[in-house]
């Protein structure tokens, strides 16, 4: 019998290596934790193993391999030797799945969290997203520098009041 509640709480300890204040649960990339039948190399028949269903933020997110390994490590150190990790692409991840707690942690870390109103990139020319508040001084007087930032999930802004450049976790 797999204790899925316990697994969910263990997953809270696994952080995104690119944004280490967020857990994989905060990020919304864990879609499901369930009980599965063991594979050939698994425990004896009749026993079950945990299966964790994940979805990537972006197709090319290089953190996914590290995240999968970290999940295995945390579960292993808590006695789960056999764990199945399954990747699903549909439905596609959206920043709407990020927890409110996660958004607060992002802001405290200096990254502007995705806006609460879901905005998917519109291919219209020179269309700007709604104003993004500076995570440092809370000013709304900010400018987009580049739609592509230090990682695939972020874009680069500058605050016109305090002068600091900052990352914005872009809506997706």
């Amino acid at each position, binding site marked *: 019998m797999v204790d899925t509640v316990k697994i969910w709480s263990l997953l809270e300890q696994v952080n995104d290596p690119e944004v280490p204040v967020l857990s994989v649960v905060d990020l919304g990339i864990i879609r499901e934790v369930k009980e599965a039948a063991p594979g050939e190399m698994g425990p004896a028949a009749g026993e079950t193993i945990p299966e964790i269903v994940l979805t990537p933020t*972006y197709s*090319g997110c290089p953190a996914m391999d590290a995240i999968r390994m970290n999940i295995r490590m945390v579960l292993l150190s808590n006695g789960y030797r056999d764990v199945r990790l399954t990747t699903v692409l*549909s439905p*596609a991840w959206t920043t709407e799945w990020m927890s409110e707690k996660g958004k607060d942690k992002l802001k405290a870390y200096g990254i502007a969290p995705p806006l609460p109103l879901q905005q998917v990139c519109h*291919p219209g020319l020179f269309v700007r997203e709604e104003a993004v508040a500076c995570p440092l001084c809370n000013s709304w007087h900010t400018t987009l520098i*580049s*739609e592509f*930032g230090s990682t695939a999930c972020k874009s680069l802004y500058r605050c016109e009041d305090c002068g600091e450049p900052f990352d914005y976790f872009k809506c997706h």
Partner: protein
Amino acid sequence: MKDSLIDYTLHLADNALVLGHRNSEWTGHGPILEQDIALSNIALDLIGQARFLYQYAAALLNAGGGGPGVSGGPGVSGRAGAGSGVAATEDGLAYHRDSWDFKNCLLVEQDNGDWGKTILRQFFFSAYQYYFYQRLQSGKDRELAAVAEKSFKEVSYHLRWSSEWVIRLGDGTEESHRRMVGALDQLWRLTGELFAPASYEKALEAAGIAVDVAALRPAWEARVGDVFQQAGLLMPETGWQQTGGKEGRHTEHLGYLLAEMQFLQRAYPGNEW
């Protein structure tokens, strides 16, 4: 049918990998840091899309029925996949096939040239991929539809970014305009292939798996025309168009690209770290 699906999946994967690799050649060489990062991000998205597609192609190859075999089939056919004793893998498909096995469009393999040529190539392809993935999401193959759903969001960013750059350069200085006209001269004749279905696309179209690429053309032309108008660039007549990439007949550029991309696996076969 299954052979066509393998070819089709490889065609989509090769498009994404080859353009992703081309864009990655700019990493560390972009005109300014922000745009270097932008193009590297786009490369990452494309290579990520290619990975999902190669993984699916490998699963199809391993599931039985074998690969298409003869010329134009995956280079691993006969050596990997069902019945061969060697499992096909995403890495094997990317690193162990030669240029005649690749099914990417000629457009994506062209050399980077200057920033203008790279931008125009990206714009032509992103505009195509945008409408393509939009349709593929409702295709009958669930795996491909899922990749399309994921990728569509990413490509929306690529299209917006590259469109804006075409306008900046076309409507920029005399020099940037001259270079865009030069890039257009080189690339336009390769855009027709995007909308000319290969045999495997036709075979899968009736089953609702492949996108009818010919039908994407009006939307693509409207987008390109709109951007060109703002960029002060003239939309050329369709004219003569070069094709062949989808069937494995490539320009000289692909061989050089593969020589670099596949070097490690060619020199040290099977090496891992």
